[in-house]
């Protein structure tokens, strides 16, 4: 296991390096330091102010190669800072990015954790229910509905949800956020509901397939032959055996909880990391964007390692070597 872990971590490190390098390449292939400065200072900023900004933010260094001082390049500095977790300040407003992360992660988690925690039992329950009635009208209707639900853009759900629930029925505020947990629920009800509904489509389809596939296995027939009821077979036999795909599917979502939900946060006025990422893209804010991508990549790799370890727990046949 330890050899596996070392190998896995090395692979992860290589991936992070690649991601950082690729990000640098992509960003500076499309944006010049002058773009970043112009966005930060405004259209009317005179050339002197732009030049001053570029120097003070270190974007005047050679980009990749500096024969005089090989470490004095933007690329080197980019890697040095990220690997040292020295996130620096936002290019848009000079606020320390670490502080932004601290401020935003709570708001993001308050939306994504309920989405995640409610989403799992909802998707599993609904797909068990549909698989239970497999090959009946319930199953077919369920699958058709699921395909319809997953085919429609989340934007439509957001706008329709805001209009239906917020404007016509007036059950919840259309948008907003409050850090006070006592009133937070009323703001989150609508985005969580919309997120759950949208996520349910693809999850239902995926898990139904998993369950239906499992129910045709030998052990299920054996269980029925032993006289176990359908409910017992689904809950005690099929569900545990379907845990591998479920784990794979759900654990890789965990990093996304921290990095937030881009559109939901933007439309519902939740000041999380997802909406911060959108702002950073809009503002050509390389400093913030690279941190978000870097943190996202780290979390993703961590989640994959956790998934693999979790395999050994739910399935004793799996060995990590």
């Amino acid at each position: 296991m330890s050899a596996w872990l070392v190998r896995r971590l090395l692979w992860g490190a290589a991936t992070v390096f690649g991601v950082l390098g690729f990000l640098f390449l992509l960003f500076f292939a499309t944006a010049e330091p002058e773009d970043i400065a112009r966005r930060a200072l405004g259209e009317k900023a005179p050339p002197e102010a732009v030049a001053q900004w570029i120097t003070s933010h270190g974007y005047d260094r050679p980009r990749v190669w500096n024969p005089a001082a090989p470490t004095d390049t933007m690329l080197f500095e980019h890697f040095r800072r990220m690997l040292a977790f020295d996130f620096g300040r936002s290019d848009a407003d000079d606020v320390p990015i670490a502080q932004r992360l601290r401020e935003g992660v709570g708001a993001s988690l308050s939306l994504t954790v309920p989405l995640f925690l409610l989403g799992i039992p909802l998707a599993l329950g609904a797909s068990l229910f549909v698989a239970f009635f497999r090959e009946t009208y319930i199953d077919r209707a369920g699958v058709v509905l699921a395909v319809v639900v997953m085919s429609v853009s989340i934007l439509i759900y957001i706008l329709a949800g805001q209009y239906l629930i917020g404007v016509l029925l007036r059950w919840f505020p259309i948008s907003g956020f409050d850090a006070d947990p006592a009133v937070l629920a009323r703001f989150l009800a609508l985005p969580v509901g919309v997120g759950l509904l949208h996520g349910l489509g693809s999850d239902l389809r995926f898990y139904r397939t998993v369950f239906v596939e499992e129910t045709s296995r030998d052990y299920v027939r054996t269980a029925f032959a032993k006289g176990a009821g359908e409910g017992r077979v689904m809950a005690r036999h099929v569900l545990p055996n379907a845990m591998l795909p479920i784990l794979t599917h759900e654990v890789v979502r965990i990093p996304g909880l921290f990095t937030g939900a881009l559109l939901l946060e933007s439309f519902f006025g939740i000041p999380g990391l997802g909406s911060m990422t959108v702002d950073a893209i809009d503002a050509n804010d390389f400093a913030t964007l690279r941190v978000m991508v870097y943190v996202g990549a780290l979390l993703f790799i961590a989640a994959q390692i956790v998934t693999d370890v979790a395999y050994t727990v739910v399935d004793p046949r799996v060995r990590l070597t």
Partner: protein
Amino acid sequence: MRARPVAGALAARLPAVALAALAPIAVLACGNNPYPGGDDALRVLYTPYSAPPKTLDPQVAYATVDHDVLSNVYETLLEYHYLRRPYELIPALATAVPEPRRLPDGGVAYAFTLRPGIAYGTDPCFALGTPGATSRELVASDLAFGLQRIADPAVGSPVLVTFAKIRGLAAFGERLAARRAGEPGFAALRIDEQYRRAGPVEGLRVTGPYRFEVVLDAPYPQILYWFAMPFTSPVPWEAVAWYDGEDGRPPFAEVAVGTGPFRLARYDKRSRIVLDRNPDWWGARHPEWRAPSALYPADGEPGDAARGALDPRLAGRPLPFLDRVEMRLEKESIPAFAKFVQGYYDRSAIPKESFDRTVSEGRLGPEMEARGMRLERAVRPGVYYLGFNMDDPVVGAPAGARARKLRQAMSLAVDVPEFLRVFLNRRGIPAQSPIPPGIFGYDPAYRNPYRTLDLERARALLADAGYPGGVDPASGRALRITFDTPDTTVQSRLRFQFLIDGWKQLGLDVELAATSYNQFRDKVRNGAYQLFFWGWVADYPDPENFLFLLWSEMAEAKSGGPNTANFADPRFDALFDELKDLENGPRRAARIRAALARLETERPWIELFHPEDYALVHGWLDGVKPMGLPVPVWKYYAVTPDARAVARRAWNQPVRWPAWALGGLALAGLGPAVATWRRERRA
């Protein structure tokens, strides 16, 4: 038989399942009010903002949303009369608008006198100056300190070019930078000490605790307008020294320590900004001063009385009328507008998607009128235009009369009213010259002979120019002109295509080159462009701020200035040189008319339109008049919270029956499922 107990158990559990499904109804009772615990008794203004402010540093901030916040917390020496147009300066922190005093050496001095007894809002930073202090009086040196910050390279102010007209200010910045770079430990000194050691600025003379003088190297009457902009706000050195972003203290760009009618009570800029009425504001403490910037004006421009801007409950009353301003971040316009319609915002812009539902033929729709809303229309002091690169050999000055006729012809083929109708919901007025309404020199009766749609005349001019039917005799094909834009969005492509189609009717082949902003800048820098689309919004309401865009000294090719058309016309320059320093009056008006006549025939620009803002305001919000300039306005606003509370309750009763219906539907849907399951079990 085995199935029965399970089915029975499920059936027994059904009511519990149904109850769980209906549980959210318990929450529904609270309805859609986004301000739980909101105080109906306080006079609070609720207003959305679409992007977080970049900085609250008054010497740096240039974005509208930055100014929305900080111009209500900081104050300036001068302000604008809230209602009169053309815009008029009034004294604010100063006791009077100063007159220029010519110096024998060619310089000009402006002497300001501060009102004594003005104090900063309470803030812990003042303990740096006097231990235990939480506030102090505003003194003249704070104004000098603010202006010195503009020259400080570490501050990064975008307006140093303008303020470098103050004698010795730029040199001060250079000395400061040199000592920071050259002397170990200098940069670590407290900021006031650094400025003191860098030596005085000749053009900033503090002559007493309340008196100071600004000396310019040469006449520049527009400087007074800059003293009504946040860049010149006095700043206490204690705030800059204390808020350094270290040890948990926010950076200076994230706080606001001013003398104004409001103070920053909360700054979660990515979700919520709250300004509270400043109980210690000098305007409220000294109503006997009758200071013009602390009273709602008693007179305005014609029409103000009719639109309610001179309501006797407001006119002549001491400001401010609000207790609090609640700003909420709404990045998307649709939810923001929906909340406005529900009464949860007091004012709102109109999103494109809702425009037709809201406004028709420039008037408010019946649905909105029934809710008591008002439509506030205001032309922004700005201009959008198409510019020619006057250095270009085909469309520019090198081609002489031929190119002039080509430009005139192209100008006659642009249908602005149709452009505004199709793309901007008619939000804008066609421009006849660079000068927009509300600015001295604007003449509503003026009609530019080259700014109407007249294809016949255009074709004749084109033939005259040697391009009959748009054909270039040199190549035998349609004359090709490149139209450069730094905008690659689909919407803008449609807009530009509309213009190109106009020229196509003359036979011209105009090709759109949409690139990134940076590539566009590169082309401009290298002179490799012919035609471009651009806009300008005034910094201050003076014709100079528009006509300088065509002054040869400001040419992109010559000085990197904002004269992107590289227009260089000796006669226009001579007129501009004269009119820029004149006082508003008949002499200046005559020079402006003559300068516009030059533009009329020379056509370096095809003026398109002056943008118009449409805003909706609820009936309970009074004292709203759009300003179009970065100036404090909230102190003039007045809300009637009782009327708002009544309307909010009436408009937002939750509709609960669909919840029960949904619950019933869920139950009804389970029934057949259970039946099927039982049937299958029996089989």
